[in-house]
C-alpha cells in the first residue's frame, strides 16, 4: 500500500502483524485471494456510490484499500512476494480505480470526460513507474476529500498530478538511457542504436534449461 514510503509500510506491517499471521497461518489465505477479495469489496463500493450512497461507498472503498494492504503483507510473511504478484496487485488496483471512477460518473459526481482523462493519466504513469520509480500515489486516496472539495476539482488534481509525474518519469527513464549511451561512448552518430541494442540484450529472458 505504501511501497513508496518503506518506513511507513514497515510500521503498518508491524501493527497489522497479528491479523496477517491469523489470515495466513490459521486460515490459510493466500496473498492473491486477498487481492481479489479487496477487488470484490471495491466493486461493491463502486456500485453503492453509483446508487447515490457516497459515504457508505467511501467507507467500503476504505475497507477495500485496507484489505489491499494485507495482500502484500501476507506475501512478505509467507515469503511468496514476487514480481508477478506485484503486477497482479497493480492491475487489480487500476481495475478498482476504473470501477470507483465510473461509479462516480454514474452518480453524477463527475463528468465521463474528466473521469476518463484522470484514469488515462493514472494508466500512463503506471506504464513507466516500474522503471522511473516515481509514483506520487495521488489516486483513490484523493477521493476521500470529496465531502469537502467538489469532485470535478479532485479529478482535475488526479489528472494533473499523474500527468506531470508521467512526464517527469519519462525524463528519468531518458536520463538512465543517456547514462547508458555516455558509458558506451564511441561514434556519437550511432550511439543511440548501439545503446538500444545493449538494453534489449539485457532485457531478454535467460534461455530455459534443457531437459535431459
Amino acid at each position, binding site marked *: 500500500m505504501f511501497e513508496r514510503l518503506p518506513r511507513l509500510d514497515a510500521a503498518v506491517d508491524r501493527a497489522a502483524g497479528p491479523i496477517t499471521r491469523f489470515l495466513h497461518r490459521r486460515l490459510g489465505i493466500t496473498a492473491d485471494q486477498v487481492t481479489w477479495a479487496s477487488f470484490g469489496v471495491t466493486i461493491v463500493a463502486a456500485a453503492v456510490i453509483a446508487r447515490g450512497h457516497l459515504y457508505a461507498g467511501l467507507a467500503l472503498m476504505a475497507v477495500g484499500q485496507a484489505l489491499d494492504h494485507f495482500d502484500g503483507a501476507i506475501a512478505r510473511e509467507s515469503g511468496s512476494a514476487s514480481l508477478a504478484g506485484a503486477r497482479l496487485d497493480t492491475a487489480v488496483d487500476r481495475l478498482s480505480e476504473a470501477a470507483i471512477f465510473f461509479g462516480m460518473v454514474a452518480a453524477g459526481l463527475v463528468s465521463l*470526460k474528466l473521469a476518463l*482523462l484522470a484514469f*488515462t*493519466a493514472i494508466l*500512463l504513469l503506471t*506504464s*513507466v513507474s516500474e*522503471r522511473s520509480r516515481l509514483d506520487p500515489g495521488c489516486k483513490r486516496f484523493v477521493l476521500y476529500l470529496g465531502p469537502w472539495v467538489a469532485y470535478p476539482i479532485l479529478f*482535475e488534481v488526479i*489528472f494533473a498530478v499523474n*500527468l506531470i509525474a*508521467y*512526464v517527469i518519469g*519519462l*525524463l528519468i*527513464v*531518458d*536520463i538512465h*538511457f*543517456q*547514462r547508458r*549511451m*555516455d558509458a558506451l*561512448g564511441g*561514434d*556519437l*552518430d*550511432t*550511439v*543511440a*542504436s548501439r545503446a*538500444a*541494442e545493449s*538494453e*534489449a540484450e539485457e532485457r531478454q529472458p535467460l534461455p530455459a534449461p534443457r531437459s535431459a
Partner: protein
Amino acid sequence: MTIVTHVLATTLGVKLFHLHGRSVVLAYLFGVAVDIDHFIKLPYFLRSVGLRNKRGYYWRSSLQEPVALLWIIPLSIFLGTVVPVAFFIVHLAMDYAVRYEKMPWYPYSAVVTRGWLTRIPDAVKEGVLLAVLICSNVFLVWTRR
C-alpha cells in the same frame, strides 16, 4: 532543427491562425519550449564531452518525440484546444527532417530512426526551410499592415 527555425515556424502559425492570449502561450510552449530538454541533457554533455565542440551528441528526450503525444493529446482534450497537438506535430515534423538518430517511442520501443528526406543534406533542408519561413513571416506582416 535550430531554435530560430522553430521560433519562425511557430510565429507563422500564430499569425496564420490569428491566435490570442492562452493559445499563443501554448503554441510557443509546444512549438519551441519543448526544446528545454536540451538543458536537462547539458550536464551529461559536459560530463561526457566537456567543452569541446563535438557534433552528434544525443540531445533528444521523450519530451520531443512522438511518444509525448501520449500525454499531449489528453492535455489538449483537458484544455479543450488543438493548439498543443498541432504545434507539437509541426515541431516533430521539422526535427525528423534532420538526419541524426531518434527514438520515437522510447521507453515503450527501442526502435531507432533517422527520420525522413535523409538523402538531402541537413544544411540544405534547414537553409531552404529557414528561407521559406522568413519570407512567409515577412509576407504575412506586410499583407496585414
